[in-house]
Every structure is written in C-alpha cells, then in structure tokens.
C-alpha cells in the first residue's frame, strides 16, 4: 500500500503535539510495509527530500510570502501540497492508494486530489476550531470550520483519538458515527486499527 500523509507540522518543525504524533505514525507505517510519504511545510528545508527512518518526506514552502493571517497562508500553501502530491502520483505510475490528512490545513488539497485523481482520503482529527477558539464565530473562525466541514463531508473515514472527540465531531458536524473510527494512539492495537481503517478506505 502507498500512502501520502499531509501535515502542516512535522519534525524538525514542531508547533504542537501533532508533529511527533505524525512522525511516529509514519515510522510505524513504514515498519508495517506501507510505502509512506509525508508532505509537509518547511520554510527553509524547502524542496528537500529525505527518507528519515524510511519515511519519504517532501517539504514545500509558501509561494506567497506575505499574509494577513493563518487562513490566507494556508490557502495559498495548498497548491504546493497538491503539486508535491501530484508529483508522487505521476512518479509512481499513477498509483497512490490513500491520503491521510491531519487537521484542516491541507483539506483543500486532499479534496482536489480526490476529485482530480480519484485518490480517496482519511481525515485524521487532532483538534477542532470549536475547541481551539471556543465560542468564536467570526467569519475567520467560520471559514476554518467550513473547511473542517468540507473535509468531513468528502473524507472516506475520519480517525479520531478519543470517544469524546467522536462525540464532538458528531455534535458539531453531524458526521454519521459509522464514518468515524476511534483509534487511540496509546492503545496496544493502534497500528493494527490504523492499517485496517486504511485498507477499508483505499481506492481500487
């Protein structure tokens, strides 16, 4: 199986908890014989391609350097993510089984790749805008929420890390519960469950 992981943070760029989690996930996937690519952002390791612990990692930077906020920053970065993912697709004889996108940032790219190249994706939820900015309903927050909604609507499956998050996803976005997989990174069956969910969601 060939999987591309999208994450806006990945070591050595660590913003929050997500970076190390995604790294651990990628390393374990490699150990489970999944050909694993990570597409992530880095401002000066741009274009660098390396394979730490077998994880094929590409880093893109934002083609538009000046921004008025994280939202516009994310939205112009997505085309670079698409470019990197499309390069992987064309260089592997058009065979990518699945994209696993972590949080909202690269949802637009995942959706385009699904529509254009028919690569299905999983949306792995680390956190939601409702919790990051509690009760904030400005157009800025609503725009991020609308991207989260798009991701939940278009994804094959959602992976959440706790039952609480599953209930939140249901409460806030009305995602059918059978679409949501609760997989705790701390459980003994973590990798087994992830692989099962991947297999269920991959394209033909």
């Amino acid at each position, binding site marked *: 199986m060939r999987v591309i992981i999208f994450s806006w943070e990945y070591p050595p760029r660590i913003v929050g908890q997500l970076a190390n989690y995604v790294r651990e996930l990628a390393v374990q996937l490699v150990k489970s014989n999944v050909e694993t690519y990570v597409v992530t952002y880095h401002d000066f390791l741009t274009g660098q391609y390396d394979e730490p612990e077998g994880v094929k990692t590409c880093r893109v930077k934002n083609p538009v350097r000046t921004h008025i906020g994280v939202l516009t920053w994310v939205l112009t970065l997505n*085309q670079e993510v698409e470019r990197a993912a499309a390069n992987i697709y064309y260089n592997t004889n058009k065979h990518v089984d699945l994209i696993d996108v972590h949080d909202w940032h690269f949802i637009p790219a995942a*959706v385009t790749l699904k529509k*254009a190249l028919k690569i299905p994706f999983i949306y792995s939820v680390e956190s939601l805008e409702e919790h990051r900015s509690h009760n904030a309903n400005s157009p800025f927050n609503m725009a991020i929420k609308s991207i989260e909604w798009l991701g939940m609507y278009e994804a094959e499956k959602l992976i959440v890390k706790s039952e609480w998050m599953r209930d939140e996803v249901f409460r806030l976005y009305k995602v059918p519960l059978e679409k949501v997989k609760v997989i705790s990174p701390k459980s003994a069956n973590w990798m087994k469950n992830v692989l099962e969910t991947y297999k269920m969601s991959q394209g033909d």
Partner: protein
Amino acid sequence: MTRGLTVMMLTWEFPPRIIGGISPHVYYLSKSLAKNGVNVYVVTCDFPGAPQHENVDGVEVFRIDSYKNPSPDFATWVYLMNVNMQKEAAALVNSLGGKVDVFHAHDWLAANAGIGLKHVFRKPLLATIHSTEIGRRNGIHFDYERMIHETEAWLTYEAWKVICCSNYMISHVQWAFGLPVDKVVMVPNGVNTEVYEKLEKNKLSQFRSKFALPEEKIVLFVGRLVYEKGAHILVNAISEVLEKVNAKFIIVGNGYMKEQLSSLVKNIGLAHKVLFTGFVDDETLKRLQKCADVSVVPSLFEPFGIVALEAMAAESPVVVSDAGGLSEIVEHDVTGVKVYVNNPDSLAWGITKVLLDEDYANRIKVNARKKVQEKYDWNKIAHQTKAIYETVLNEYSKSFWA
C-alpha cells in the same frame, strides 16, 4: 490533432455576473474561440438566477457556489472561492475524461485554481493579466496588497505564457513581476461593434430625454467609482466646462467613492447638472454610449481601457487621459482627444473642444469607428489567442509532462 483543442477558462466573473471588464472579455473571447472550433469550458462564480450549467453561444458555462464559505475579507473570499472552483473544475475535467488541453486563468482571482489544476492534471496554464494590484493601488503599501501582488507574481511564474491586452501592460507586468520577454504576449482586448448598429435611431431621442434636456450636451463617464478610474478628475472639471457649454454629466457605475463624489457635486452646487445612475443594464449602457456627445475616460491607471473602445464603437467622440492602454488606443486629433493625466483643466479643455467643434467631433468619431473595426475585432483576437494555445501545446508536447 484529431479532436479540436479544448480550453478551460477560469474566471471570477462571467455574464450575467458583471463586476468589471473581465466578464465581457471572457464572454466574447470564449464565444469567438468556440466559433473558431475551440471547445471552451468556462468555470465561474454563481449569480442569482443564472443556471449552474448552460451552453451560451457554443460555450459550456459552469457556475460554482462561490459564497459557500464565510470570509473575513475580500482576499480570503477569493482564496476560499478558489477552493470550490478548483474542486468543481477538477470534477468537470474528470467527467470529460481528462480531455482538457489548456487551463486559462484570468487575473489573480482565479490563480489558485489555475495553478492547482495545472499540477494535478499536468496540463499547461495560461494567464491573462488584466490588471495588477501595484497598478490599482499606485504602489504596494500594506501586507494585504503585498499578498495580492505576490499571488499575481506566483500566477505569472506558474503560467506558460502571460497574455496582456496592451503594450503598456506588457511592460508593466514585466517590471512588476520580473518576467522574461518571451513569456509575455500582447493580444488586444476587443469590442463588439454590431451591438451598437442594432440600436434603433428613432427611439434614441426619447431615451435621451430621460437623461438630459434637449439643449444640454451629454458628457458620459462609465466606470467603477474608484480612485484609479479618475471620476473625481471629471467632477473637478465640470464647472470649467459649464462656463463654455451647457451640458449634463452622466456618471455610470458604482464604487467606494460614490458618496464622496456626489456630496462634492452637491457642495459645489451642481447637483442639477450631474446624474449618478449607479450600475445600469447592458441595453441602457449601450444607448447611453450611443447618445453621448462626448465619452470621457479620465483614468489614472488603465491597463487597457475597454470603455474607450466601446464609446468609439458607438460613435461617441472620446476624451481620454494619456495613461496606460488608453495612450495606445487613441491617436490624438485622429481617433480621439488625449489630455494630461490627473489634470482637470486639461480634461475640461478636451471636453470643451469636442463639444464646441462639431466638425472636429465628427471627424474623430468616424476615424475611431473605422479603427475599432480594423484592430479590435473579436474574431481576429480569437485567432491570435488560438495561435498562442497551439504554440504552447507544441512546446508542451516536447516536455516530460506530455
């Protein structure tokens, strides 16, 4: 090529959604390309009452939900709209079996979608740059403007070729984005002269009487009421014109300067001589252009100046500022009058000259119409554009993407 060339146009406006000059441009270009055997798909923003999918004069038009996402500001709206545009366009390309040869994006407003589609489908992207942020704002002053400027630069970087509508814009985009000479191509904007011929002459005097008294000459301004279009220059020229000739000034268009301009007109006591019509429908606009004794284009920055061409096609004598694309369209004393940029005295002089010298006005408007028919014919422009597509596809066929 056994099947006809297929192009997908990406534009934020297409009739009936009309915000500026891009909408009519893409409409006439697409229609003329279709007549010349090109398969044209237009992906654009939705508009109340307009269908999601229709065939307009041989052009397949698809309208996307452009107000799906809440947005804090215009630029963010544009980027979010592009998410949906790209998503819908990608699905459309797929439904066509991937048979799209070229993506053609118009201005930064469709940059993200164009760039994304280029990479996921590995097809060449062309960009028409109608205007630039650095030109509209007369410099880059804030991060917001710089972000748009850099988005424009990114689009020109990703484009196989950059099309501009005037020689002025060619040198402007080369300067603004540092583009190599062989990347930019000039294809003029066009104007449809037939629509003015169809207007019935006898009905025009009745129409005219709704706007001006019989003894008043009509001075017409058409454009968005924003700084760079220079409506304030015209307002400042009004009293000087009225000293010499009785006229009614009709200002068509909307924009953030409208309140400011109309209160200025009231304060100088000329409210009875100036009519702000706001946005008018196409039919009214064409009749107004046909009735105008002089059409004024006092822009401070003007990439092309389509309203000047329209006035020329309508046989209304034009007075334009010697700026940007206008300088190329109008030949002074031959096809119109050129006046100094940002200079109300000079503008008043130009307007008065045309209104007082009937022979002069007649001469320039006849010349102007001839010129428009020769040079700015849409069929000719479609041929030039098709030739650019073919050149690009020929180059593309030798690349590793093909």
